[in-house]
């Protein structure tokens, strides 16, 4: 159909898109070196560079491999045992763990497995949480839930007719797996491993807290150290370019293979074969172990409530929480509105059958995903340093960059629902000659839960930011994740645990809203 025309409604949408491109554009302006600072290729000949590059790739590959290896059996358990206890709560926990501010987990891991951790005596005298093993543990904790959800949803795509036929033909379990299950998941496994690899390659807070030193430094951390400790701008720029080239290329490749959906609703799976006694025990055991693995680092924070130190000052905690909420709100409100706005020209292009234009607009609205937070921040840092007083403009830049980084997620939340609206109602809307206010009311009522879910997701992601704040933050006004880092790095674990609990509570509430609104969408 080609009868749809844009009109003036396109102008704010295209202005929003231009603003978004400007945010990344300015970052690259800074990265390219127009601000007087240029990358130093000599860095690439330094053995130190190869050391951190190798470690970055190694930890990301191992994290991705382990997350997929352990995630697959858990997804199978959820699929084959639909009657599992607390299944819905477990899926919500998976969602919480994936979007959990990293420093909450770090505090939990340190209390559990650190030098005086509750479980450390069981792991022998050689155990050390800091270094590769700690980084892997944290990365698996953060990404395993994503793999579980995505694979579980993939398994739900198996048509009931395939299972019916397999059962009628009395196929043994192994043949059923080869014929029905494996073809459905094998392609997804590779894509998921790739996504987790990129996430871990770009991970900052985990390596900042559990890594460090020549043996356990990644590119992200090295960029931060070059900027904040050595003030070596050319080295930071070189490393940022390497980071962007690798992460951007991988992300573009993965984008072509198709994204991993992990936030859609459950459906299907009514004809799944019931596992035998041993199969049931295996699935139940795997489920229980995974639940323990995810719950322990969070539950270990709870006892701190019983021993709140008398010296604890609540004011900094509440001030940091207030700052976090304020920054996150300032980012999530425009991110949600902008996501809705920038989808407008994409939807029009879809209706007009202009697929290349739609793909280009789609890429433009989510292109910030290809640039790691640290790379964007470094670009802006170099750009802003000679032009702005960072201690004054810091909060604005934190909001701006987080807006660019969370917007793609809000876009992904709203896009399917809006495309569904158009598929069903675009001819009707055009035929009824609706006034724009009427159209807006109808559309926002239709979006309902999706809009609130997009907002909650943007809020969650912005609340957990560490990478952007690390560059533009100020010791006089700190966010809750950064306060946790400061407490943990000075071994004030009681305070760190209490701050983590507070942040966990807020995030848990947001995940509950997100989960509920998605169900109502």
């Amino acid at each position: 159909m080609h009868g749809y025309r844009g009109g003036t409604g396109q102008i704010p949408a295209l202005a929003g898109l231009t603003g978004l491109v400007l945010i990344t554009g300015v970052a690259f302006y800074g990265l390219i070196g127009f601000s007087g600072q240029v990358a130093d290729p000599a860095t690439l000949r330094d053995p130190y560079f190869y050391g951190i590059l190798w470690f970055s790739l190694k930890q990301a590959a191992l994290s991705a491999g382990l997350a997929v290896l352990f995630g697959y059996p858990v997804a199978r358990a959820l699929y084959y045992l639909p009657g599992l206890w607390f299944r819905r709560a477990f899926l919500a926990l998976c969602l919480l763990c994936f979007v959990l501010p990293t420093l909450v987990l770090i505090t939990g891991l340190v209390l559990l497995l650190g030098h005086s951790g509750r479980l450390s005596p069981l792991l022998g005298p050689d155990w050390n949480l800091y270094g590769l093993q700690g980084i892997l543990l944290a990365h698996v904790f953060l990404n395993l839930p994503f793999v579980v959800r995505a694979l579980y949803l993939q398994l739900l795509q198996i048509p009931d007719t395939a299972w019916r036929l397999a059962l009628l033909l009395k196929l043994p379990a192994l043949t059923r797996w080869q014929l029905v299950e494996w073809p459905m998941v094998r392609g997804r496994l590779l894509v998921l491993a790739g996504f987790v690899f990129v996430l871990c390659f770009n991970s900052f807070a985990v390596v900042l807290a559990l890594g460090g030193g020549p043996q356990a430094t990644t590119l992200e951390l090295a960029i931060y150290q070059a900027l904040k400790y050595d003030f070596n701008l050319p080295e930071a720029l070189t490393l940022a370019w390497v980071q962007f080239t690798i992460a951007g290329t991988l992300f573009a490749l993965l984008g072509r293979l198709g994204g991993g959906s992990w936030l859609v609703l459950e459906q299907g799976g009514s004809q799944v074969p019931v596992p035998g006694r041993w199969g049931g025990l295996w699935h139940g055991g795997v489920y229980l172990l995974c639940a323990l693995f995810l719950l322990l680092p969070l539950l270990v924070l709870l006892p701190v409530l019983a021993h709140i130190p008398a010296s604890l000052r609540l004011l900094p905690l509440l001030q940091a929480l207030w700052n976090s909420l304020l920054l996150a709100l300032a980012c999530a409100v425009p991110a949600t509105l902008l996501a809705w706005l920038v989808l407008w020209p994409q939807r029009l292009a879809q209706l007009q059958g202009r697929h290349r234009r739609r793909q280009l607009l789609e890429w433009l609205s989510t292109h910030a995903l290809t640039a790691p937070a640290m790379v964007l921040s470094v670009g802006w840092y170099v750009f802003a340093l000679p032009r702005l007083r960072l201690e004054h403009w810091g909060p604005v830049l934190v909001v701006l960059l987080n807006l660019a980084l969370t917007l793609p997620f809000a876009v992904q939340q709203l896009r399917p629902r809006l495309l569904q609206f158009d598929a069903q109602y675009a001819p009707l809307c055009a035929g009824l000659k609706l006034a724009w206010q009427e159209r807006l009311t109808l559309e926002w009522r239709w979006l309902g839960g999706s809009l609130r879910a997009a907002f909650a997701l943007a809020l969650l992601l912005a609340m957990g930011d560490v990478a952007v704040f690390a560059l533009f933050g100020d010791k006089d006004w700190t966010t809750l994740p950064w306060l946790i880092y400061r407490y943990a790095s000075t071994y004030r674990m009681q305070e760190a645990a209490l701050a983590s609990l507070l942040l966990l509570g807020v995030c848990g509430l947001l995940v509950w809203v997100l989960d509920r609104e998605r169900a109502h969408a």
Partner: protein
Amino acid sequence: MLEVSQVRIAREDWALDYDFQLESGAILTLQGRSGAGKTTLLMLLAGFETPDRGDIRWQGRSLLPLAVAQRPVSMLFQDHNLFEHVSVWRNLGLGMGRQRTAAWEQALRDGAEALGIETLLARMPATLSGGQRQRVALLRTLLRPEPLVLLDEPFAELDPQTHALAGQWVRDTARAAGKTVLLVTHHAQDVALGDRNQVLGD
């Protein structure tokens, strides 16, 4: 007068040609086998499809440069005529703007009574049967101010008794308001509703 002159629409593996005129205030019934181009003709008139050549004129003015929202057309689709997330009453008033007068509201209530849906106005579309939804959409399509009415299989989900009732209501309402109607149907009995019948694809 509606003039469809030498209109051709072609896609990869098919092409359709139309050439006819229809006097203002007349009712044209359209018949033909599936794929003969009945719905495509209505989509061309409404502006959802663009012809490769030819012209479509209404009262001497070409409709082709006009966007869907600018055309003097009210259309009933085969499906998705109601927004599922707002009430029937709200659906009926959509797009009426300032024309939502007391007279229009009275006409709406009279029409609802004639079509047997007067008790459904406060309900949500999801709670209605297929036939009830079709009558709600029919009511809105006929009572809109546009002079050219396009109905794509408007009685497909109605039982024989309601079908006859709705058919008569469409004819009477269109006549009273002087509307020009193109009505796609698979039922031979609907031919009697129109002033002319055209079988496409012959």
